[in-house]
């Protein structure tokens, strides 16, 4: 049976996270944006949050079944991680998207370790995230010459006895500088294409690892974006994610490790975009309501009505696409197309929603008295990271039109 209303149990989780978003995130949003970092007070309050959210949000060490809410199966025995995560992601991003990315924990580095890591690796890498300790993990895939086309990465890994020697530059890495470790993708043989890719966990004190430039950005300013430089960086073979046998067994190798998480993370990033769009819409609506009366028989400001109504229904439709993709992920139904649909739609449409929120409010929308201008700057990257809107459309079109191998 279809069920498009959330149950009282999830409502409880949502309401709790909404309260957190309202009291712990939103009040620090402006200050954090100005100072380009999360305030210490915020970190102390947020440190427990990542673990609560269960698997898909990359929350801490992988737990035994039934321990976290997300692992608890629904009535039909399916897991609920993805659905719960996106409900939570929307709320926290509504609070503040940049601070959401600053919640201590393994971040996007969590899922590949949890999915591909050996039990020993999971223990060593995820075990450092203990209650009350402010630590980060990160995920380093993008390079100056390899963004959407992740298969083009040029960082190299050469085997040298028990070690791999890594060389290359990673860029735009969220929390890459403050992280204790980064999941770093490199190729052992460029001629092998994707099957030459390997994922390593590189500690921040590995010899040959250093942090380059910290980026100044359009939005998400409170979130750290770092350049990482690998110069003859020595990584022990025990830190090759999954172990050497894993790559011998699996054709396609590390690339699949990189892609496997997208089916869960894309709907989640899309849900974050929905949270930002909703936040901007609510402020614009409240602003308009104080000034215009929509209940009059023929509102004088029909253009405003059309704009606000369109924002509202696009937000609701985007949320349903996220729910659909997450539901498929929980049910174990292949969802690459639907995950991309949610991301393509939410990334593009919520960018428009934030644009329109400013338009509704006029010059006040630009003012730092409101957060709308900040959200307008923040939202843009949701149509870029985790695969640009165009990358999503490549994924979708390959799955609806027969015979496309490449463009």
């Amino acid at each position: 049976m279809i069920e498009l209303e959330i149950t009282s149990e999830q409502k409880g989780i949502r309401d709790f996270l909404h309260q957190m978003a309202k009291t712990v995130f939103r009040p620090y949003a402006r200050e954090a944006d100005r100072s380009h970092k999360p305030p210490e007070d915020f970190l102390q309050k947020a440190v427990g949050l990542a673990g609560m959210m269960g698997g898909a949000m990359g929350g801490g060490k992988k737990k035994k079944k039934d321990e976290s809410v997300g692992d608890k199966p629904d009535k039909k025995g399916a897991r609920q991680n993805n659905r719960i995560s996106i409900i939570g992601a929307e709320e926290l991003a509504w609070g503040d998207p940049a601070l959401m990315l600053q919640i201590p924990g393994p971040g996007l580095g969590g899922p590949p370790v949890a999915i591909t890591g050996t039990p020993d690796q999971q223990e060593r890498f995820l075990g450092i995230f203990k209650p009350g300790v402010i630590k980060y993990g990160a995920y380093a895939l993008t390079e100056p010459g390899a963004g959407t086309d992740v298969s083009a990465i040029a960082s190299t890994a050469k085997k040298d006895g028990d070690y791999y020697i890594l060389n290359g530059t990673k860029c735009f890495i969220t929390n890459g500088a403050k992280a204790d470790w980064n999941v770093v993708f490199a190729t052992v043989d460029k001629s092998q294409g994707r099957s030459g890719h390997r994922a390593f966990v590189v500690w921040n004190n590995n010899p040959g690892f250093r942090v380059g430039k910290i980026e100044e950005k359009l939005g998400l300013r409170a979130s750290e974006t770092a350049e990482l430089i690998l110069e003859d960086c020595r990584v022990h073979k025990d830190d090759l994610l999954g172990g050497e046998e894993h790559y011998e067994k699996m054709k396609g190798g590390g690339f699949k490790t990189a892609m496997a998480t997208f089916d869960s993370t894309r709907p989640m990033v899309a849900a974050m975009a929905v949270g930002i769009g909703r936040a901007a819409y609510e402020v614009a609506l409240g602003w308009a309501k104080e000034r215009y009366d929509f209940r009059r028989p023929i509102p004088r400001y029909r253009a405003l009505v059309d704009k606000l109504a369109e924002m509202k229904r696009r937000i609701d439709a985007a949320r349903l696409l996220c729910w659909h993709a997450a539901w498929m992920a929980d049910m174990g139904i292949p969802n690459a197309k639907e995950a991309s649909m949610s991301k393509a739609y939410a990334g593009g449409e919520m960018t428009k929603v934030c644009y329109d929120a400013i338009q509704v409010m006029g010059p006040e929308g630009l003012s730092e008295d409101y957060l709308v201008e900040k959200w307008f700057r923040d939202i843009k990257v949701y149509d870029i990271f985790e695969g640009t809107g165009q990358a999503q459309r490549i994924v979708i079109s390959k799955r609806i039109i027969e015979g496309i191998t490449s463009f």
Partner: protein
Amino acid sequence: MISFELDEEVKGLQDTAKKFAENEIRPKARDAEKAGAVPEELNRKYFDLGVSLIDYPDTVGGMNCPLFWNVVLQEEIGFGDAAVASALCGPCHAGAAVMAFGTDEQKQRLLAPFAEAAACNKRGAIALIEEDRGQEFSDMKVTAKKKGNSWEINGKKAFVLGGANADLLVVFARAEKGEGWNGIKAFAVEKGTGGMVVSAPKRLMGYNALDVVDVTFDECAVPAANLLDGEKDTVKGLIKMLDRIKTVEAARLLGMARAATEYAIKYSHERVAFGKPIGHFQALAFLMADMATELNAARWSLWRAADAVDKGMENTHQLVAEAVAQINEMSLFATNNAVQILGGHGFIQDHPVEKWMRDARTATVLFGATNLQNLIIARGESAGAKSA
């Protein structure tokens, strides 16, 4: 927990309807358009499917299924042809009106005949809007006056959909003085009632299988027993009626948009230009990716609205408006681009896409224009309804 899973029974219904749409409706769509009516044989076959009263109670011979089931069903029928789907036999909009406004006795008396074997060419319609009334439908000139044991209706109704030969016509008229909807009542006018003149069908750009007429009432006497007064609150009844009509018509339009999207996708990998199928060029592939994405987004909006109606939630009027607006805009986008993708061939009647483009533009006006839906949404939001 959030789920998009269809029950086995609904899946079965969906399959049956899809086959019927492909085998029976699609091949007849052009004929129905030219004739301005559904062929009698098609009506018979549809009636024999047994689904024309799917979401009506069993007391009137219906299947007692949720509105959501009908939404799933009508997407498939609309996939065959949306205009035919809207023109097929059944109580149609009049049924929604009787269910919303009628007493149990009236429901039984007026709707049960649609379940009888001879009912395969029976249909119902409503007469709600008038010329030059714009979007404030309550500003109406048609009047009803009590005279003895009957009501006398006078005035002219416009754009009565499927009214050319209706067996049951529900007419909205001002029966008492009042502001807005206060004093407006619904009357069931049965076939053969005197004092009613139906115009020749209007010629519209699209959706031609469904006839659209004006109806003039001149001392039309309706028995007092046909005043639909089970629901005294006119606004409440209207919302209930329109929620059902709008979700079902939107489902048909959704089906048509899906047909256009699938047609364009199929064409795009058969047609070769510059040495490869045109669908393998990014400009067109991305366009079709967007069509497919918008289609899903609109469908989930409609499912959510129909489910809310079934659950008797409070904000259905707004959720239905959101769904209709999403489907309106999506269907215009999908059908317009289907013509674009077929290029010159899209303009020619050898392919159905030109018809779908005309049909979509017509349906998005006839069944609730997007700006009217936007107004409903904005008013709902302005009243303080929380988002999600």
